[in-house]
């Protein structure tokens, strides 16, 4: 490969020898031979133990996969170690999953078990596993997540740190298959939701709670004011001209729901804030079409504070939800299916989560979430209302 400051690139002649639009390398080059031989011929699979999958082909061949958790953010050093392992056990092939786990694919069960042992023996000097094996079947896999404070400009929380804290807390569920069904946790550090957390069993979402500050001094220089005005889905922004003639905008703070879309369009409207920002928890979403259709995650906790480095409120709340779900749900029941069966009112009661006014939807189509039947269950919520209206005594 090229060396030196500019390498092959000549800043004087940027178009010379330029190659463009070649796309990705062809996937076939990266398939282990056993995968090529059995492409499209797989018959069935089995999970031999947490983290080890066996796929059986109609050719009679069997392939063994060892699945490893990863932090998503990985350094060159880490990936080189993955390469060393792949060279040693897997003829130099390795793959990543959609949920940022690493998979080592081998052609024998003994190798797979040996590999698992090797992987689990590797630790960082401070003690965490480098390559924990698990995440198969009725377990919790890696948390798909976004950038957070480590690399994004709009986050309301960190990503890697929260995920590390939550995965430490849920580690046993990664290592074992004891849940009633798969449980998928995702994190997005702001409403943009690069992490697509809106369809996860449990979603951790960074959220701002203060309207944007307007940087009057620069806004008309760095942004197109009509674009900023148009950016607001709530129509909360209007253009104004200050007494000194400065063109800027003002926000109708009653209307703002802190989505940050204006900031996305214009750097002169920042809204991040130490006290304001925090985390919303959503639950009950799913993507697969199995049994019930895909579902959106629903907001179940309106706000938890950012408390780095360990986010104890967040980890505690999630552990509670997972434990209650594990205890109460039926075999094959995803978290959302369970909550729907028992009713969301029971979900809040069992998980001991307070139901606040923020959970009454007030956005477009909110009506779809309102209950219009007398079929509801009695939980303490009901007695509190009865009491409030003087209706508790006969």
């Amino acid at each position, binding site marked *: 490969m090229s060396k030196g400051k500019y390498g092959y690139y000549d800043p004087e002649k940027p178009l010379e020898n330029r190659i463009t639009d070649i796309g990705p390398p062809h996937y076939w080059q990266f398939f282990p031979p056993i995968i090529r031989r059995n492409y499209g011929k797989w018959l069935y*699979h089995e999970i031999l133990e947490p983290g080890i999958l066996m796929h059986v082909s109609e050719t009679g061949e069997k392939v063994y996969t060892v699945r490893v958790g990863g932090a998503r953010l990985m350094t060159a050093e880490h990936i080189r170690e993955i390469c060393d392992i792949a060279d040693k056990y897997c003829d130099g092939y390795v793959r990543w999953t959609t949920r940022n786990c690493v998979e080592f694919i081998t052609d024998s069960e003994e190798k797979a078990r040996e590999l698992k042992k090797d992987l689990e023996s590797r630790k960082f000097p401070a003690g*965490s596993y480098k390559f924990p094996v698990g995440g198969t079947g009725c377990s919790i896999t890696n948390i798909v997540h976004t950038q957070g404070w480590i690399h994004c400009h709009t986050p309301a929380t960190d990503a890697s740190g929260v995920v590390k804290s939550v995965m*430490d807390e849920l580690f046993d569920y990664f290592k074992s298959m004891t849940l009633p069904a798969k449980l998928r946790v995702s994190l997005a550090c702001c409403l943009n939701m690069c992490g697509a957390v809106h369809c996860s069993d449990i979603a951790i979402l960074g959220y701002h709670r203060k309207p944007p500050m307007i940087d009057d001094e620069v806004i008309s220089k760095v942004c197109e004011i009509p674009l900023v005005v148009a950016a607001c889905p709530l129509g909360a922004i209007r253009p104004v001209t200050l007494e000194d003639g400065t063109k800027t905008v003002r926000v109708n703070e009653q209307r703002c729901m802190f989505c940050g879309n204006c900031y996305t369009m214009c750097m002169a409207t920042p809204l991040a804030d130490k006290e304001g920002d925090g985390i919303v928890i959503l639950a009950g979403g799913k993507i697969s079409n199995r049994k019930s259709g895909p579902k959106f995650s629903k907001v179940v906790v309106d706000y938890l504070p950012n408390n780095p480095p360990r986010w104890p409120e967040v980890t505690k709340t999630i552990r509670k939800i997972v434990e209650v779900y594990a205890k109460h749900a039926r075999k094959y029941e995803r978290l959302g299916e369970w909550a729907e069966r028992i009713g969301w009112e029971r979900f809040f009661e069992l998980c001991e989560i307070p139901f606040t006014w923020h959970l009454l939807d007030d956005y477009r189509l909110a009506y779809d979430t309102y209950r219009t039947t007398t079929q509801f269950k009695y939980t303490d919520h009901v007695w509190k209302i009865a009491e409030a209206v003087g209706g508790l005594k006969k």
Partner: protein
Amino acid sequence: MAAEGQEKMWDKEVEGHRTYEDIRIFTDEQLHNYTEEELKEFKIKHDIPMLEELEKGPWPSFVSDLKREALHRRKLGQENLQGPVECCEDLLGQLELSYIDKETHWKHGGIIGVFGYGGGVIGRYSDQQEKFPAIWAFHTLRINQPASKFYNTDYLRGLMDICEYRGSGVTNMHGSTGDTVFLGAVTEQLEPIFFDLTHDLGVDLGGSGSNLRTPSCCIGKARCEWAMIDTQDMCYEMTMYYQDELHRPAFPYKFKFKFDGCPNCCVASIARADMSYIGTWKDEIRIDQEAVRAYVAGEIPPNGGAFRDRDWGPFDIQKEVIDLCPAQCMEWDGKELKIDNKECVRCMHCIAVMPRALRPGVDTGLSILFGAKAPILEGAQMSLVGIPFMYTEKPYDNIKAIVEKVWDWWMEEGKNRERLGELIQRWGLWRFVTEILEIPPAPQMVKEPRSNPYIYWKEEEVPGGWKRDIKEFRKRHPR
């Protein structure tokens, strides 16, 4: 396609394939330039007590990982690196500051890229450049991942050499959209990185901005018995065919293709793609009655062993399969499993519970769904069924024809930052179906028929049209 002559560049099964030796930047001594002891003793240049809390606990610690990269870079020294030596240390330092301030310290924006492309690179600058000079600029490059994210180590080591030599040595494996992501390049290294990626590794940048985002697919036929379309091939073909749309933003906003081999949706196409391609079947579920009986007898663990670590009692086919079938189209008489296939909604449940006994049919094709997106701006949407079933064959011309109809319309009518799903809502599904896709409407497109009767009619649909004479009306109905 790939770059001419480079289609098999990394193929270990092909003679003369490229290896890491052909392209490496660092020597073995440079790669192994520190000991475990040194790593234990190593302190980065900032105090990061909070981040060091995140080195505890079992889950892999990104902090520990960044520290070893930091040490490795220090020992390489600036003479062996084009990116700043101390960038990992400053990255940790700035993150620690964010942990104190509880706010990000990345500046907003900074349009940046490689020549001729509108996407693939995302600019990033620190707002604490004096404290953390090594990350004053810390841009992201999105690199088009190989389909299903298989790699060989020669290629991967090559990638890591560039990432370390010209960037920061930090990656995201992978970004949410699927790309292999390099974090943290300085501006002047973007072009050299692009040159090395294309010339030496035969890989291109992915998408960012208002263009086609890097398409992605599930593992499919490579290692899944349920794949009913060749997800890798479709993903590759569509990525190659639409290179221009991928690199040169001309859309109102982002557009995503994702390819799932079956309704399990392992790449979440149904939640994330503007066009979700989902494999499915049209004929009957294949049943091996012998194997069904083996499941019932407890000889094979249900669901491929996914429940292994907890005692759920003996397998009960009635409770666990028959009663949970959403279509209620299965029967078990104690000996034989019957499925009324025309009622089956192909949810995959029974197949997932008994993978050795049940398999999807053999007459396979795909469903195309449209319009998924996250909440910004108008609220989250899932993809809706547009084309319930179709066959397609490489090079997928009938699918490309649909894509182009959709894009033409969206580019014409879509507002700035309006995703396809929002445009469908604004214009009405009926228009999308009848006027854009030019297909007949079908009950498969809705959960239930509308409950409000505020029905639009077009003038030409009503006999006599809308122009009438009030005088004629008054003759029959005096004022």
